[in-house]
């Protein structure tokens, strides 16, 4: 009982910090920015957050939290506009929305689809915020019992599960991405005995700077991909009425609640992210729906499933980030980098050092969702004009912003060059279908995995056997093995199918 009262006290303190007048203004501006970024095809929330990390440097911590989270909520929500109006998802997490949103727009129900999408995005975030604020203290308490061995296993679990989820067919390329990220984290002087590793240039002695690398992977690589694509944009402007009728409202209640839970749960899985949440929720929604035949042809339920889940994923992604310092999505990884810049170290100790912080995050997300609902409704009509922005003008300007963003972290030109190098690498890896999320996660978790593993082995006098007596560690080993085995079976099955298709070209 006293623990509940203590947590309520922290919650009360957090209200004052998260809902101050200045923060509300910052959230409003950030949500607006996020909505526009999310709506414009080619500009992703991750890219925006990567560029904005350094802008938060001059802000107070609470203002930085408000700014980053406001942009995050806005960017994830904004994707629905272009998905419905252009049939091009503004962000990857709105891809499932386009399947039903665009057909609805063609049927003259674009207004209802947009209103419904915005409304469920807000509800999904709010439900997930409540779950996040209830779950975080519990998980934090468990995380306090984690030792070096468990931290290493968590890092490995993070990239294996992320690899499993980030590719449709097989996890192979996801795992490759994760271990490539691990490798980049090894560059520089090692964290235990200052041993030199892969220092090809003197500037790499302190390692690969995280922020320029992330800006390159998500900024430059994205710009090159967008400018390579010359598909002209055609906007469906037919809106029809905006408000759904009573029956439509009622029919959405169950899918929204279910999708909120799916979104929050997927968010809590390291690196999984909003797009996986949206697709999974869409496919579960389709299998459970009474009107399956409408999915893909213009179903409000379909739009609701994906839009609720991708937004519910945001608070969910905060749970592993706050308690274990393992981001649940690439956007959460950007938030983690911003918090590190402000001297906040998420992880098991956070609840002891700053017990109000997780409530500040939860309440900021909740208020951002409500503000997003209001602003997005206001933007429903002007968005037609915003979406017509000339990408040939916008993208080169984004390049300049990536340069400034990379330079700002340490004021060295080397970081700008590093950013460009990572941009080119990111572009090539995208062409080879290597997903970016595991690389990001590997880059962030590589250092922890390395030092934790070696320290754990030192505690066991170089042997792994003493470490096998730890209960939490053993549970994690089982989970990692299960993830690896299921992924391997998936890969073998896909390879066999490929071989059979090749041998029998007539077969489907």
């Amino acid at each position, binding site marked *: 009982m006293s623990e509940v009262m203590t947590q309520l006290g922290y919650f009360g303190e957090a209200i004052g910090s998260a809902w101050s007048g200045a923060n509300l203004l910052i959230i409003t501006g950030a949500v607006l920015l996020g909505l526009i970024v999310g709506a414009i095809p080619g500009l992703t929330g991750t890219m925006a957050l990567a560029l904005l990390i350094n802008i938060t440097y001059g802000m107070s911590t609470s203002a930085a939290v408000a700014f980053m989270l406001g942009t995050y909520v806005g960017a994830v929500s904004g994707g629905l506009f272009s998905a419905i109006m252009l049939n091009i998802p503004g962000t990857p997490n709105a891809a499932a929305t386009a399947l039903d949103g665009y057909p609805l727009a063609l049927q003259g129900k674009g207004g209802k689809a947009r209103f419904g999408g915005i409304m469920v995005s807000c509800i999904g975030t709010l439900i997930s915020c409540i779950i996040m604020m209830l779950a975080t203290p519990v998980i934090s308490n468990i995380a306090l019992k984690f030792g070096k061995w468990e931290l290493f296993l968590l890092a490995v679990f993070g990239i294996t599960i992320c690899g499993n989820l980030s590719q449709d067919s097989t996890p192979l390329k996801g795992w490759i991405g994760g271990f490539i990220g691990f490798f980049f984290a090894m560059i520089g002087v090692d964290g235990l005995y200052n041993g030199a590793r892969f220092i090809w240039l003197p500037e790499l002695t302190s390692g690969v700077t995280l922020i320029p690398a992330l800006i390159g992977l998500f900024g430059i690589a994205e710009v090159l991909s967008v400018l390579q694509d010359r598909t002209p944009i055609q906007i469906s402007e037919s809106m029809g009425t905006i408000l759904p009728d009573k029956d439509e409202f009622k029919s959405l209640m169950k899918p929204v609640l279910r999708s909120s839970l799916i979104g929050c749960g997927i968010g809590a899985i390291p690196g999984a992210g909003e797009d996986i949440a949206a697709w999974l929720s869409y496919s579960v929604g389709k299998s459970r729906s009474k009107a399956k035949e409408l999915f893909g042809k213009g179903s409000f339920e379909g739009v609701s499933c994906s839009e609720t889940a991708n937004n519910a994923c945001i608070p969910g992604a905060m749970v592993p980030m706050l308690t274990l310092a393992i981001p649940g999505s690439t956007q959460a990884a950007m938030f983690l980098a911003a918090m590190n810049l402000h001297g906040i170290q998420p992880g098991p100790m956070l609840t002891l050092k700053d017990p109000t912080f997780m409530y500040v995050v939860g309440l900021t997300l909740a208020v951002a969702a409500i503000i997003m609902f209001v602003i997005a409704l206001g933007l429903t009509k002007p968005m037609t004009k915003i979406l017509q922005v000339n990408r040939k003008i916008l993208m080169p300007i984004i390049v300049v912003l990536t340069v400034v963003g990379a330079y700002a972290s340490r004021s060295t030109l080397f970081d700008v060059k590093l950013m460009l190098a990572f941009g080119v690498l990111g572009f090539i890896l995208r062409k080879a279908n290597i997903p970016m999320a595991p690389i990001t996660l590997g880059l962030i978790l590589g250092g922890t995995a390395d030092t934790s593993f*070696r320290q754990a082995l030192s505690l066991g006098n170089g042997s792994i056997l003493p470490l096998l007596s730890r209960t939490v560690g053993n549970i994690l080993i089982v989970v990692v093995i299960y993830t690896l085995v299921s992924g391997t079976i998936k890969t073998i099955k896909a*390879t066999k199918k490929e071989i059979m298709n*090749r041998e029998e070209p007539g077969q489907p």
Partner: protein
Amino acid sequence: MDARKKKSAAMNTVFGILLVLFSIYIIISSLSMKYFKSFIDGAGFFPLIIGCVLIGLGAVLTFIGINAGGFAELKEVLTGSFIMAFIKNEDTVRVLILLSMMVVYVFILLGNIPFVWATTIYLFFTFVYLKAYKKTWIIPGWLMSLITAIITSFVIFYAFKLGLGLTIL
């Protein structure tokens, strides 16, 4: 097999082989890294594990690529006519030119001339190459590109200088 699958098979084969070669480099480098008491303590231990895992993953990817007809496709790809067609492909040329402009901007212009001028030059040539502005009856496209480039460069420079106290390059 459709063209997309063929391309993917060739890509997997090439990427898998490159990954195996790179992993060998990681393993050799890791083994030569200094250590204090035992190799397990040393800087090279974890990179060695990474190298071993990547070599396995690279081998599997190569195997998958070859099984899907990647080698046969690669033979086709490596013919002179295909390479010429790839180099002449409009999308390839576009990306290479845009990338070259970025390289010139970052590696040559920045640091040697003031940020505002470096950025103006980069933006102007990129806008002109992309034909970002169409010719109107009174203002030619290149002039609009130049005006936008100058205004954008100054706005970004002063926004960061006044807003964040950051003097760029």
